[in-house]
């Protein structure tokens, strides 16, 4: 076969193999030698694996904005929180069943980003980042404020499983939730891949490269950026629904700026603007975030002197440092490691992902770009 044909087949086969193997995981009963806290098919392990898959999907949706369209949003958490809170509040406080809950979540998940996106896309670059952050902060305040006793402020609100299908309920049915998470990831993976290969998707990537040129060519960057924003936010809302089903409780931690920054970390750790990078980064991040504190209480970290073991038991310290090191030494992320040969697709540097306009004139920016080359 021609190398190109081979590559095309690999592109098709790899997802099928990966997702196929992942689908079988709940049926495999093997020990995990301390990598996880319990055997592979136990509810605890399946829940963590489910979370890793769920965050894989959410990170992919974030990459649609950041990696493909070049929009650095600091408010993606808001749209995840919409899914999380609407599901919990509708089932617990309003006694709704699954179908109306999902319908309402879908409607809000489309309308809200349409409105907020239209406002925040009036500015670009760093200002856009700050405005999205502010809107997310408004959502966070709302969740804390506990309107009509719905969101339960700090405590949060638990999903009421009474009105949900019985196979979703109980620890022993965790495997079904795992499959839901896997299904969500597969769906996002397919949608994102299809979208970025479609003709609007190509415009998104053109906007990332050079927005002015897109405008000169007679296309409207605003409309395209808004469509990317709405699609990414909608997918994130779906992720929020899966997330809250897995952890059974909505609490304000999903509304915080740290949640969005975590998504950014996942995407950059894995590799922005790539097919698998965000999924890998999200899985690794979620895994370390959950497992590091456990390891530090028992394993080798505990034997180190205090000065070392204390920071190492803080997942955010380890992840923050890892993130900085990656930005310096491996700008392509983990996926960049696998591509030490000639690169195809993806981003050469993170700088390509977002061009941030400063207060300087355009001419100066051009000069800076030339100076860098």
């Amino acid at each position, binding site marked *: 076969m021609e190398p190109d044909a081979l590559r095309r087949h690999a592109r098709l086969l790899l997802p099928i193999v990966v997702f196929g193997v992942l689908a079988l995981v709940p049926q495999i009963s093997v020990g995990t030698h301390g990598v996880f806290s319990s055997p592979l098919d136990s509810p605890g392990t399946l829940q963590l694996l489910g979370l890793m898959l769920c965050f894989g999907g959410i990170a992919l949706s974030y990459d649609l904005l950041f990696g493909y369209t070049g929009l*650095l949003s600091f408010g993606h958490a808001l749209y995840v929180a919409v899914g999380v809170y609407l599901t919990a509040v509708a089932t617990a406080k309003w006694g709704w069943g699954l179908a109306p809950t999902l319908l309402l979540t879908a409607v809000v998940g489309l309308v809200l980003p349409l409105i907020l996106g239209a*406002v*925040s896309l*009036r*500015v*670009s*670059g*760093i*200002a856009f*980042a*700050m*405005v999205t*952050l*502010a*809107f997310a*902060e*408004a959502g966070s*305040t*709302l969740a*804390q*404020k506990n309107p009509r006793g719905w969101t339960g402020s700090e405590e949060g609100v638990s999903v009421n499983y009474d009105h949900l299908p019985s196979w979703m309920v109980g620890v022993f049915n965790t495997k079904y939730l795992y499959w839901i998470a896997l299904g969500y990831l597969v769906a996002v993976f397919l949608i994102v891949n299809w979208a970025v290969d479609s003709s609007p998707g190509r415009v998104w990537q053109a906007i990332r490269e050079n927005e002015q040129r897109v405008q000169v060519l007679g296309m409207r960057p605003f409309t395209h950026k808004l469509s990317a924003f709405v699609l990414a936010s909608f997918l994130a809302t779906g992720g929020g629904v899966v997330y809250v089903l897995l952890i059974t409780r909505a609490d304000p931690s999903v509304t915080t*700026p*740290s949640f969005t*920054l975590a998504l*950014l*970390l996942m995407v*950059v750790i894995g590799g922005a603007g790539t097919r698998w990078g965000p999924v890998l980064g999200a899985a690794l991040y979620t895994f370390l975030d959950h497992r590091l504190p456990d390891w530090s209480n028992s394993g080798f970290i505990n034997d180190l002197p205090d000065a070392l073991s*204390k*920071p190492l*038991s*803080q*997942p*955010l*310290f380890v*992840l*923050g*440092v890892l*993130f*900085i090191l990656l*930005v*310096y030494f491996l*700008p392509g992320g983990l996926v960049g490691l696998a591509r030490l040969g000639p690169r195809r697709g993806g981003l050469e*540097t*993170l*700088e390509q*992902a*977002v*061009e*941030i*306009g*400063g*207060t*300087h*004139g355009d001419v*100066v920016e051009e*000069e*800076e770009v030339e*100076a*860098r080359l």
Partner: protein
Amino acid sequence: MDTFILLTVTGLALGALYFLIASGLSLIYGLMGVLNFAHGAFLTVGSYAAWWSSVKLQGTIGSIGLRFAVSVVIGLAVGAGVAALVELVLIRPLYLRHIEQVLVTVGLSFALVALVQAYWGPDLHTIDVPSWLNGTTGLGGAHVPNYNFVEILVAAGVLAGLLAFLRFTRYGLIIRAGVENRAMVTALGIDVKKAFTLVFAIGGVAAALAGVLAGIHFSEIDPTQGTSLLIFAFIVVVIGGLGSIVGSAVAAVVVGLVQQYVNYKSTGIGDLSVVLLLAITLLIRPGGLFGKWSPTH
């Protein structure tokens, strides 16, 4: 009436905190194009250094006033030192790669806060202050806690100091010129990189100052305090116009007052109304009140 006076003074004090954080952010952004997410961490580091040194000096310095003064100076020095170090070691090698600089500061904001939490725990701590700071002064019938006046005076002093520094010193001139057109300053043979370290150090001092004052204002310090204040400082910077010190000052006063007045009516709504204020500002003037860039930028 007395409630109104109390709210006005506390609102101005809150605005003073926002200004201390926002001025550094705005200066750094204006000169270097870096959105410094680690600025909240500078605040945390500064307030923890002040608290920790105050605890350590308990046996050495008897007078509470002197001990407080010494620990504040140590806090500010640590804030400046950490900020300058961050610029030299982490930001400088990525010169002109704005997005990567932002990402590094994001990673740093996680790592520094986690580091503080690792060594001193997630618990709240209280900085020992002279008792007159927590006393009250009668003003038109209202009993206003004294620390509010201190915050307002400090912020006004920093504003005046910064403006004088930018206006009358050689480095101030270089910074102003750099904000205007960095390429031209470099082309004229001026080492603009020294100014980068300098603005980071100034921002670090201002942030540490905000950290200590916030510790007194909220009567506690905790590792995440900086991050939550940072968000409102971002809002202030955008409303005021990126890169403008005066804009930050005006916006800080407006945001602090609006937040305080509305929060009095219903807690939390003040925070929401500030975000609404931001949205309205962007719809009318995308560049902010004192901004100079066009909406297409």
